[in-house]
């Protein structure tokens, strides 16, 4: 992750000094510009604009979400699938508490990884002259973590509610893909517009380094994450534990 951030950042000086690059991007089809947050008058030759497009529009959310969904799935659905939950839950442990403890571990992992990405970017800032606002960088990393926690807890909660590893991966992955596309395309496809409120990506806002994030949107995403985890921790009590 840090290596990828470094690679992307190290290319920035050549982009910045190339006047043709803006023109090239101008000629991209609207659908790509919309997906990568290029349509809002951003400037890809500024440090903030460049990282918004190269990292925060797709790659960082993708990396963090893959990690979050993987971690959320593994910790309950994966352990149940492997038969390892049977012994643990035969101990004097409330299932609800086990789910919440696993939720805390998943969130910690996501926050750490997001922070590593943020720190890597901050370290490259003086080296390649990105001239970022650290407040905005911090907010961008926070919104990244919020997205990760929501999808990671969704994976955990689905796995806690139904004994299916496939659903524990599939539901949050589907929600993430739908949320991402709705956020990227609602401006172009009018029928998607009413659904933009349901997209976590739309709620936290695009191009965080140039535009800042929507703090209330991030709060809504986190509240939804808490609600999902809470539901999972209640529903897990009702069902049978599966054994392989």
């Amino acid at each position: 992750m840090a290596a990828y951030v470094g690679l992307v950042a190290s290319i920035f000086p050549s982009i910045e000094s190339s006047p043709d690059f803006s023109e090239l991007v101008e000629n991209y089809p609207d659908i790509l510009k919309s997906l990568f947050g290029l349509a809002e008058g951003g400037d890809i030759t500024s440090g903030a604009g460049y990282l918004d497009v190269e990292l925060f529009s797709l790659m960082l959310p993708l990396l963090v979400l893959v990690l979050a969904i993987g971690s959320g799935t593994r910790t309950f659905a994966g352990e149940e699938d492997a038969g390892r939950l049977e012994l643990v839950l035969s101990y004097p442990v409330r299932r609800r508490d086990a789910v919440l403890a696993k939720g805390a571990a998943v969130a910690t992992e996501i926050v750490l990884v997001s922070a590593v990405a943020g720190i890597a970017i901050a370290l490259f800032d003086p080296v390649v002259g990105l001239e970022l606002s650290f407040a905005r960088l911090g907010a961008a990393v926070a919104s990244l973590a919020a997205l990760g926690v929501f999808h990671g807890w969704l994976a955990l909660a689905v796995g806690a509610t139904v004994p299916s590893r496939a659903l524990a991966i599939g539901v949050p992955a589907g929600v993430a893909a739908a949320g991402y596309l709705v956020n990227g395309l609602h401006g172009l496809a009018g029928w998607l517009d009413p659904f933009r409120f349901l997209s976590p990506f739309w709620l936290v806002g695009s191009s965080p380094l140039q535009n800042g994030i929507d703090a209330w949107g991030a709060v809504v995403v986190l509240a939804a994450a808490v609600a999902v985890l809470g539901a999972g921790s209640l529903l897990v009590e009702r069902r049978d534990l599966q054994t392989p």
Partner: protein
Amino acid sequence: MLEPAAIETFGLSKTYGKKVRALVGLDLRVEAGEVFGYLGPNGAGKSTTIRLLLGLLRPTEGRAALFGLDTSRDGVASRRRVGYLPGDLRLADRLTGKEQLESLARLRGSVDSGFRDELCERLGAVLDRPIRQLSKGNRQKIGLVQAFMDHPDLVVLDEPTAGLDPLLQAEVRALLRETAAAGGTVFLSSHSLDEVQHTADRVGIIRSGRLVDVDSVESLRERSLRHVTVTLAEPVDPGYLAQLDGVRVVRVEGSTLRLSAPETAMDALVKALASHTVLDLVSEPADLEEIFLELYREADDGS
């Protein structure tokens, strides 16, 4: 007031999906301090019963209590008094035995680590290597240690000696007897009568999800048949053997006789055979399936 039983179930039933009736109306009472063997062939509902007792499964009907604590409503409190060895033990493969035991001990709060170390030494558990490198027998030792390490009032063991060599099987039996002698209760599931007959006071027999019989080990053994194959120096008319109580002549092949006899008739049988020259004599316990058939026959006769 009566002291609550270690295990008590009331019409406990479990149906998987809509059709598979894994357990039907189980009414069972195991007193505190008892070693109870739970016998049945694979798929009879033994593990289902155990998982219901531990709150891993929710009953379709009925309920169960451990020491008077309902396994659904007071699940955590009831499990605090139980040590459990699953039939299909899955441990955290990446941890070492020591790390696994410590991680499990934290789930209980505090564990008498002196007793834990003593158990590890006694069973010869391998503690310093990742569990994925251990043989099935060595994993089973870790499983046994974690089941006993907190001095539980009730130990529930699902096929505990699977994968262990005979010396260790004897060690496990000794451990069970000591637990009972110290006032603990043992619930031991097995598909082999041999495994439980040395330790259990009483045995419950389950088949197709129904409890067929609960009896003391002695009376079960008295009723259980032995297969006796005897080779004599010359062919003999086996008619006189069939007159012995409970003995049946199954087949005659020249001078080799195949008989079935309850254990109580063995002495009379051997003495009767001794009037001839015996070349060979093999006596084998009937397997559980045959004991079931015998039990069903008795049940049918009774009705």
